[in-house]
Each structure stands twice: as structure tokens, then as C-alpha cells.
């Protein structure tokens, strides 16, 4: 079943092309002075969010990358804005809540992402 990756109903089966991205986090210091591992991008979306209210105009409930910071690990790894993350370290990101997605991303120091990009993997 090939359905559009960007209009995916969470829970249904999907088959699509995706871009593998390996992201190694870099360590930094946050405002409290603690050592954290940063990836350098922002995510939005999730099955508990309403995609119709997203300012970027996303069309489904998946996890999207809404911003990539300059010179960050994400930019170096090849992540671009408005990429939809399909999988992260084997976790399925097409049917996760926002909080869960954040937890999964923060779990490991190296992320193996599978990403769908408009115009590249799909037209």
C-alpha cells in the first residue's frame, strides 16, 4: 500500500521511500548549567496534536521538524526543515504523542532517523 507519506492516517500501514539520517548529538550546557546533549532542531506534531492548527500547515499527525538551528548537529547530518520523521532508532514515529517523541529523541546520544522529505522522497 503506497499512501502519501504526508497524509498518513496513524495506525494504517504505509510504504514509502525515506532518507536515512544519522545524527550524533553534541554536548552543550543549558541554562541551569547542566551538561546536555543537543541535537539542534525543533520538532512539532504528534497524534495528540491537531495538525490543522499548525502554523506550518502540516497535513497529518506525524512528527515534523519545524526548525533546524544553524551549524548544529542536525544541519550537519542533513536534516532539513519540514522533514517528517518516520522512525527514530527503530521507534515508529508515525503514531506517537508529542511527549513520547521528545523522550525517544532525548534517549540516545546517536539517532538513526528515517525521514520523508517533500519533493525528494515524494513529489
Amino acid at each position, binding site marked *: 500500500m503506497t499512501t502519501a507519506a504526508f497524509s498518513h492516517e496513524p495506525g494504517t500501514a504505509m510504504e514509502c521511500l525515506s532518507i536515512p539520517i544519522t545524527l550524533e548529538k553534541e554536548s552543550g550546557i543549558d541554562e541551569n548549567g547542566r551538561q546536555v546533549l*543537543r*541535537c539542534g*532542531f*525543533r*520538532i*512539532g*506534531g504528534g497524534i495528540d*496534536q491537531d495538525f490543522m*492548527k*499548525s502554523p506550518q500547515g502540516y497535513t497529518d499527525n506525524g512528527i515534523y521538524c*519545524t*526548525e533546524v538551528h544553524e551549524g548544529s548537529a542536525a544541519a550537519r547530518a542533513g536534516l532539513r526543515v519540514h522533514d517528517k520523521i518516520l522512525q527514530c532508532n527503530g521507534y515508529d514515529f508515525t503514531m506517537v504523542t*508529542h511527549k513520547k517523541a*521528545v523522550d525517544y*529523541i*532525548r534517549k540516545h546520544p546517536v539517532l538513526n532517523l528515517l525521514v520523508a522529505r517533500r519533493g525528494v522522497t515524494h513529489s
Partner: protein
Amino acid sequence: MEKEEEEQEEKEEGGDGSSCGPTVTLAERLEGFCNLVLLRVTTGDNSDLKRQVNVKLQQPANAPPLRRRDRVSMSFSVGPGPSYATAGAWTPDQDSVVSGFTDASLYASLQRHPQYSQQSQYQYHQQQQQQQQQYQHPQARQKASFVSLRNVNARPLHKRGRRVSEMTAGAGGDGGMGGEVIEVQILPQDDNWGDNTTAITGNTSVRSESFQDVTIIGRDQETGVTFTCQRYAGSALCALVALFAFLSPIAMVLIPRLNVIQLKSEHLKCDSECDGLLISFSFKLLILLLGSWALFFRQPKATMPRIFIFRALVTMLIFVFTFSYWLFYVVRILENRDEVRYRSIVYFAVSLVDALLFIQYLAVILLELRHLTPQYMVKVLRSPDGESRWYNIGQLSVQRAAAWVLEKYYQDFSIYNPYLDRVPSKKKPHPSNSSFKYYDVDGNEENPESHTRAVLTASARRRDSAHNERFYEEHEYERRVRKRKARLITAAEEAFTHIKRMHDDQGQSTPMNPHEAAQSIFPSLARALQKYLRITRQQPRHTMDSILSHLAICLAHDMSPRAFLEKYLVSSPVMQNDKEHRGVQSWGLVCDQLLSRPINGGTIFQLRQADVCLLCTVSHIPHFSIAEEIIHPKSNKFVLRLNSETSV
């Protein structure tokens, strides 16, 4: 057997031990047969005694079977207890119902004692001394224990009636003494039954009423001269005193003028100052009169059991003032006729009027204003159906608070319908609903406790399913009520469309006045209305005439059908019931503390009328501590926080 002495009282299940009471001989014609011998001795009197005597009959092996029509005379003796001798109220014959059944075959075992047939079986044994008659014959003691049986459906005996009917054993023509052996075994009974079966009444003999009853009868009068006197007595006295006080300044001013006492004419001259005083005097009197009329000239709201303290206080004050003023008047003015001036008399009268005005001010505050600020909360709980309300009440005495609560009761509570205590269910009560009767025949005495235990668990299991039954029954009942209500509204709307107001000679059908119009459209909604009234158990409350007159009024005033039906659909407040529109409603007030004391937190008093009980509990209104909290205007700023993105 000696069992006849051991007539014991038994509670529901068996007890143990035995004791005795006065001898009873009841011989009744037996009309039914059943598989048990259950004797129930109940007193229908004002003593609430119920004694159950289980008598098991043992059938000896060689007893010939009885025929159906055989009659047996038995008597049992209840031995004397000291309480019985003094009480004298347990007169078993006319007060007791002994009901029982026996099996025809068991009759075979009943021995009819030859001695007893000759003795008066119709005798009526009352107290201990009669008991000795029973024991005249030693044979009697040894052999039979007579038990009087009676039809179980018989009503309890009237206190004055004497029911002695007889069963004589009828085997053969000798009047029934066949010589069989009656072995009557009494189940083991509670030993202490004599202690709690004392019946204490005011009766000294069976044929008399007690003093308690007399006072209860006398209490029911709502009309009659004594009640009316009592109702108006307090107000009449106060009115008299107030009238006397009102007229005294006028009298004081007028007495010198009327030449009752001789004053010199120059003393009687009234200059301008005196005139001014007289004018102010008359106006103050007028204001006093108008104020009293506005506030106090009305029907007393309630007749209270104890004196109304504030009103008595005010009346006493008025009386004291007036009396002292008259005293001064007589002493000062009438004694010193030569030096007194008219002006001083007028001054005096004006000061009395001022004093009366101030007393009226005090009366207004004490009687009208003091109880207006709420200080307590009273919860009024109605007993048979559990409806309750809360009210705020001011500082009042218990009896005034009761009158106040009754005002609110007639305004807020719904009508109490005693027929709706149990949810009316469609199906007939099946026999398992009734309490389980346990009969023990054939003299099996092994394990009576295990039998009762089995009975108890069976009835407990039935009780558990009864909780569900109530829920489903109520649900079903509400459905049926709603269905009938819908039909009633439809029928009423249809009926009302037939009637149209006649405008300016439309003249096809004969014009009718509202009553005739009501009668003409009533049949079309009569059936639906009757069914609705029947299911809500309201039909005793509304007669045909009242319905017709209500319909006539609604038609005359152009009311809609729903407005006409409101009277039957809405059952609150209490005054909706026409029967409550009496002139006088009597209630009884019960309270632990004195009724003229003020109410306090924790006071409980109860109002009773027929089967309605209002329990009123008073509690303090809590003191409210209100503190100011400031919200800083700078903290009134808001920031939009978008949860939708997180930076990782």
C-alpha cells in the same frame, strides 16, 4: 403431660426456658386445617404484646384419626408472673387472638379430657385465681393441655368483645370426651418473657377507658369555644392594655375640662404655648394610632403553648408606665388642685404620649425586627418520605421558630402522599415476598437451630435480590407515569380545541356558561385524567366537583390546557392540596428544652400532625472571615505558549 403449665411465650424463633401466665381458656370452633399447630396469642389492646406460642402436637401411635368436623376443646394455662398480677391488663380472652391450625390427623392425638367437658368451656378465666380452677383436678394437670384454636383469618379481638367459642371434641355422642391422650409439647421458650410483657395501661378493668385516652380525645378539638378563647386570649389582653394606655392621655387632658374636678377657671386658661402642646399631643397620638394599626392589628398567626415572652414584656411595660402616670396624676394634680395649671397637665399628658411612642418603638424592634437577621440555619426533615429543606432563621424562641418553620413548610414542601410510600407495582405480590413461615410438625426436635439457619439464609438471599427489584420497579413506575402523563396532556389539548370563546353572535351552537362548557368537554378527558390520578394515587385528593369547577375557572379565564392540568401534575407545595385549606391546622410541638427559650445551635424540636413528622435541627451560621486579596495589575499579563513545538 405437664405441658399446660408451661405455656411459654416465644419470640419469632424459638427460645428456651419456660414461664407461666394466667390461665386462659379459649375454646373456638376450628374451621381450617393445616399442617401445623401454631398458636399465636396477641393482645389487641393498647399493650403491644404479641406472644407466640408454638405448640407441637405429638401423635401417639395408637390414636384413631379424627374426622374433619371433629371439634376439640383445649385450653392452655399461662402461669402467673408477678407482673401479670399487678398489671391486670393482660386479659387474654377478649384481648387475645389465638390462631392456629391443626392437621386433621393430629386431632387423633388430642385428648379430650372428660373433666373439662363438664367444666365450663365457655368460661372466661381472667386472673390468677381462675387458674386455680384449672388445677382443681389433678387429672387435668397430668393429662391434657388444652389449646384453643381459632381461624387464622380472624381479626384481633376488640377490647370489649369477648370471644369465647368452643370446640368440643366430637367423637361420638358423649360430648367429645373420647379418652385419647393429648400430648402437647411446648417448644422451649425464652425464660425472660415475663419481664418484658408487662402491659401497663390506665385501665383498671377491661370495660373502662383509661385517663390517657380521655385526654387524647380532648386534644382533638379544633373548634369550640375553649379553643377560640385560647386562640385570642393573649392578643385580647394585650389589646385591652394598649387601649387603656392609648386612652389615658386623652382622659388626663379632658378630665380638668369636663369639670370633674373643680379647677379655677383661670387655671384652665390655655395660652399659645399650651395650644402648641395640645397640637403636638394630638399629632403624636395620631401617629401612635396609625403605627399600632399598621403593625399590630392582625390575626394572630399561631396559638403557642407557652406565653410569648416579648409580647408579655411589652404589655407589662405599657401597663406599668400607664399605671405610674395615673398614680402621679392622681397624687400630684388632683391633690394640689389649687396650684396646678392646665399647662402642666398638658405637659404631663404629652410626656405620657412620648413614653408610649418609645414603647411602640421598642415593641417594633422586639417583635418585628429582631428576628429578621439570619443567625441560624434550620434543617427541616419530613419523616415518612424524607424530604428536607434548609432555611435561614433569626433569633427566635422555640415556639416562634416552630410557627415560622410551619409557614415555610406550607409554602415549600410538596404534598405528602401516604399511598406512594411503596412504589406501586403491577404484578401481584408473589408468596415469596411474604415472610417465611416456619412450621414444625411431627415433633422432630433434632436440630431446630439448623432448620432456622437454613430458613434465614434463604430469606437473606431473597432480600438481596429485593434491592434490584426496587430499582426496576421504580424505573418501571416512572415509565408508566410518564406515559400516562403524555396521554393526559394530549387528551386535554384535544378537548380544549372543542371549546372556543363566543365572539359577537357566532350563534351556531347554543352559548354556554363556563360551568356548562366544562361539563361538555370533561368526558373527553375524563378517562385519561382518571388513569393518571389513579397511577399517582391522587384520586382521593380530587373529587369530580372540584375537577369540574377548576375546569370551569380555567375556561372562564382562557387558560391553556397545560395550565388546567398543572393542578394535577404538580404536587407541591402543600397548599396545592385543597384539603389543607382549613382555617386552623393543629400541630404538636416536642422539644427537650423549655419552649419559650431562644433557639441555639444544636436545638432539636419536632412538629407532628397525624402521620407527618417534621424534625427541625438548628445549627449556627458560620462566622465568615473575609480577607482582602489583591491581584497585582502587572501580573495581569498573558503569554501565548505554544505547546506544539519542542526543541531537542
